[in-house]
Structure formats: structure tokens, C-alpha cells
């Protein structure tokens, strides 16, 4: 995100916050979020894809909303205005191609008749899907479909295949295909919000929601690019609140903190940071440690800076988003680190993977206790790793933290019965150093694309092979 883009976010957020009427504010939020989505989606070499990717995401959201309804006919009647606004925005963005002042999208969008035909076909299929398939089954099918989409987008081999198919449809040369052709803005967050709605609707936990609230939740523009992933009931409650003027001051303060972290601290550290390109060239162990430390701090300031901008912008319109970081690098053990790093993603995985799995295993008295701890911990961390991309480096990064958390758990369990030490402060300091070193070394797996590259970096950090 550039500074201009941040300023646009802040301006739109301030504008939305000044609208007192909730209904109109939600409509304005939807329009702003869609425009931001199309505007921020980068160009790809495949024709019209920068238009189609946001459009598909919006249609997926409409599918989820329709699929969660018990009476589609009544729901459509009650939400017709929102639906018309959503489709009007898509049509106007497509019609933008006929104006001299073109375009909101990165490249010229497809013809309006193509878009409208596509939308008509989509609605016919959606009606058949919702009316013909029972509620529970259709939600289950959508969960499988979205996980499949996620896997395809996150696996370079599958993305390459999809790129070839899309190029073939567009009559473009498939020899130039690349997995990078399918860079889809914010899709990891959008899919996880959609899955949250589907899981909770299936379990009967989702509160009744209209289409406007659902679209605001999924595409809420301050959190579109990099989260956080709020939970729907909390977000819905925030949407119903009236913004207060003093929140503008708090919001702006938070945005400035974010700008400083992202554009001053993170971008300066980027000049020193370790990267797959410079790692093989560095021949000094001390310089390598410095570069790794710079990377460790940079990734934190970069991500937490974006989160500050998102939380601050949301506050400008009186909406409180959940925190994503809580001083993670100051924690004295790995368990605490994972309660304060990318909190909303970790909470998502706790809710839908870790807790159900751990509960099932803990109730199984035949299984040894240590295994009921290792299995959920390791599988959750592997999935968190693979959420970043389905490749060996993210798998290894997840495994590193999964094993680390298991060892941390065992150590804590062992220490419980030990008398409290007089050297508490020293222990805490040692715990902090160990945790920080473990997390920082773990970034080597995260950033080096190959196993051999990571091992070579570890060797050089220890002074071998220089």
C-alpha cells in the first residue's frame, strides 16, 4: 500500500463516519469498499482479470449470504436495495471503459454486456443451487469449494495450471503462464471471513444478518488488504453503534502510529533486511545476524503498521476492530508470543481447528497425554504456516513453531510443581531472550524459499561455510 492509498482510505473512512443514518452509512461503506477493492487490485497479464477477481469475490460473498438464508424469496425482497446497489457498482465500474477518464481498475474492464450476461447466468445458477440443495448440504459444499479455491491459489503448481487455463480461454499464449498471474487482493482474509460465516451458520451460531451488514463485514475496506479478521457478531454490533467525534482523534493517532511503523521503521529496516536474494551473498556471520534481526523487526513493524492503519481508519467511523498484535517480541515464552502475534488469525484457527481437535483428543482417555498436546499443536501450526502459501518453507516454519509450542507446554507443565524461584526476573529475561531468538531464527524458514537455502543460512549464522 502506498501513502496515497492510505490517504484515500482515511478520507473515505472519515466521510463514512460522518453519516449518521446507519442504513445510508452501510450503503456508503459497501460502495467505498467495492471501489477500493477494484482500485487496489493490481493488474495481471491475463486480460480483464483485475476486473474479474474482485467481481468473483463479490459474487462468492453473495453466494454465501444467499446460501445461509432459510427463505431466499423473502430475503431477496427485504434486501433488494442492497443487491441493486452492489450490482450497480459492478456495472458502473465495467461501464467506466467507455469513458475517456478510464479506469477505476488497473486496466480497461470488459464490455458491460459481457459482465451483465455473466451476472444473469450467475443468478440463475445461484437460485438453482439454493433452491435445489438443502441448507446444511449447500453450506458444506461451499466450505469444500472455498477450501479448494484457497488450496489452488496458495499452491504454485495449481496456480500455474489455472493461469494456463485462463490464458487458453482468453486466447493468450499459455507458455508465458506464471503463478504470479493470480495475485488476488485480500483473498486470504476474504475467504477466511466467508468460511467463518459458513461454519457458524452451519452450527446455528450466526446471528440474523442482512445483506448490507454481510457485505460490509466481508469487504470492510480498512481491513481488506491485510486484516484483521474480525468475528461477525462483534463486527455487526460495532456497525450498529453511532460514531463519536472524539473517536476521530483516536483514529488519526492510530493511523499516524501505523504510518510511522510502516513507512519509516519497516521501510528503513528493509534496506538492511535479510532476503532470499542477499542471503547467499553475505559472507560474514555478524552481518548475517544483523540482517536477520532487521528482517525480524521489519516484518513486525510492516504488518503491525498496516494493522494500525486499518484499526485507526475503522475508528474514524466509530468501528472498533480487534487487535492483531500485543507487543509479541516482549513475551517471555512462545505460548504468549502466539497469543500476541497475528491474534485474529490464530484465534480463527483455535476456533475451527485447534479447539475441536484438542477437545476430541482430550476426551479420548486411551491416548497418552503428551500426544493429545502434540497433535493439535503441530497440526494447527502447520495449517497456519500453509495459510501463507502451500510450499515447503511455510510448512517448515509451521513445524518449527508447532514443535516449539509443544516443548514450551511440556516445560511449563514440568515447572508447575517446582517452588517459585527467587530469580524470577532473571528467568523472565532468559525466557524473553530464548523466545525472541527462537522466533527470529524461525523467520529463516519463512523467508528462504528452499530447504537447502534455509540450511545454508543456518550454517552461516553459526559460522560454518564462510
Amino acid at each position, binding site marked *: 500500500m502506498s501513502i496515497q492509498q492510505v490517504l484515500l482510505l482515511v478520507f473515505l473512512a472519515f466521510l463514512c463516519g460522518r453519516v449518521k443514518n446507519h442504513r445510508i452509512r452501510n450503503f456508503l461503506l459497501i460502495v467505498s469498499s467495492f471501489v477500493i477493492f477494484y482500485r487496489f487490485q493490481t493488474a495481471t497479464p491475463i486480460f480483464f482479470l483485475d476486473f474479474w477477481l474482485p467481481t468473483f469475490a463479490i459474487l462468492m460473498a453473495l453466494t454465501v449470504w444467499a446460501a445461509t438464508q432459510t427463505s431466499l424469496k423473502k430475503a431477496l425482497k427485504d434486501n433488494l436495495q442492497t443487491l441493486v446497489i452492489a450490482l450497480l457498482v459492478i456495472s458502473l465500474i465495467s461501464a467506466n471503459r467507455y469513458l475517456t477518464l478510464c479506469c477505476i481498475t488497473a486496466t480497461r474492464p470488459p464490455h458491460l454486456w459481457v459482465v451483465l450476461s455473466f451476472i444473469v447466468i450467475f443468478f440463475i445458477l445461484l437460485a438453482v443451487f439454493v433452491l435445489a440443495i438443502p441448507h446444511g448440504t449447500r453450506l458444506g459444499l461451499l466450505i469444500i469449494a472455498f477450501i479448494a479455491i484457497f488450496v489452488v491459489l496458495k499452491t504454485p503448481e495449481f496456480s500455474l495450471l489455472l493461469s494456463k487455463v485462463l490464458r487458453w480461454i482468453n486466447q493468450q499464449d499459455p507458455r508465458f503462464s506464471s503463478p504470479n498471474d493470480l495475485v488476488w487482493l485480500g483473498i486470504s482474509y476474504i475467504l477466511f471471513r466467508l468460511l467463518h460465516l459458513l461454519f457458524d451458520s452451519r452450527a446455528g451460531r450466526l446471528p440474523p444478518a442482512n445483506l448490507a451488514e454481510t457485505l460490509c463485514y466481508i469487504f470492510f475496506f480498512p481491513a481488506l488488504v491485510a486484516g484483521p479478521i474480525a468475528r461477525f457478531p462483534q463486527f455487526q454490533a460495532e456497525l450498529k453503534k453511532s460514531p463519536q467525534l472524539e473517536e476521530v482523534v483516536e483514529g488519526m493517532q492510530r493511523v499516524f502510529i501505523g504510518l510511522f511503523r510502516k513507512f519509516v521503521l519497516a521501510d528503513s529496516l528493509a534496506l538492511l533486511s535479510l532476503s532470499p536474494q542477499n542471503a547467499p551473498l553475505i559472507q560474514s556471520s555478524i552481518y548475517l545476524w544483523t540482517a536477520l534481526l532487521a528482517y525480524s523487526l521489519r516484518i513486525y513493524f510492516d504488518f503491525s503498521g498496516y494493522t494500525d492503519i486499518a484499526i485507526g481508519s475503522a475508528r474514524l467511523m466509530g468501528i472498533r476492530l*480487534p487487535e492483531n498484535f500485543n507487543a509479541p517480541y516482549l*513475551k517471555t515464552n512462545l*505460548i504468549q508470543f502466539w497469543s500476541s502475534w497475528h491474534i485474529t488469525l490464530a484465534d480463527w484457527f483455535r476456533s475451527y481447528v485447534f*479447539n*475441536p481437535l*484438542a477437545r476430541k483428543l482430550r*476426551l479420548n482417555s486411551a491416548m497418552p497425554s503428551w500426544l493429545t498436546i502434540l497433535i493439535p499443536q503441530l497440526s494447527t501450526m502447520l495449517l497456519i504456516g500453509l495459510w501463507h502459501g502451500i510450499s515447503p518453507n511455510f510448512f517448515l516454519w509451521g513445524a518449527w513453531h508447532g514443535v516449539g509450542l509443544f516443548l514450551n507446554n511440556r516445560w511449563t507443565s514440568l515447572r508447575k*510443581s517446582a517452588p517459585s524461584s527467587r530469580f524470577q526476573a532473571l528467568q523472565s529475561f532468559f525466557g524473553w531472550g530464548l523466545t525472541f531468538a527462537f522466533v527470529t531464527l524461525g523467520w529463516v524458514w519463512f523467508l528462504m524459499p528452499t530447504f537447502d537455502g534455509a540450511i545454508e543460512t543456518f550454517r552461516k549464522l553459526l559460522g560454518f561455510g564462510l
Partner: protein
Amino acid sequence: MEELLNDLSKFIAETILQNPSRKIKPTEALISSGLLDSFHLVDLAIYIEERFGVKIEDTELNRQTFDNLQELSKIVFDRMQGK
């Protein structure tokens, strides 16, 4: 409610923290302070279900739903009353 709170407090101190002399205040932060980790929360949910017949969902084992004994006791109490 008082009894319920004491029961949960005793379970956390004796079984989870293995420190019977530890007194947990009703408003003391349990999750955000790091006192209870993810496994403790799962064990706590299993205990509540077995002891009081009340289910705390997997999606509720987080600081947004409860972060101290007072909040947790209220959830369990309300559910026991069928609210």
C-alpha cells in the same frame, strides 16, 4: 453464582495450575494475562460440560467471550438457567 465461581476457581487453581494455594480473584484476567493457555481452556470447557452440563463452544474459548471468572460464571449460570 457464588458457589459456581468458587467451584471454577478451585478447579483452575488445583487441577489446571496445580497450585491449590493460588487464589484467583473474580475479575483477574485469565486469558489476556497468559494465565491460561489454549489447552487449559479446552480442559476448562470439558470440566464445565461434565460438571454443570453446559457447553462452552469451541468458538467461545477466547478473551472476547470471557476473560475472568466473573464473566465465565455468568455465562455458565445463564445457560444453566436456560437463558
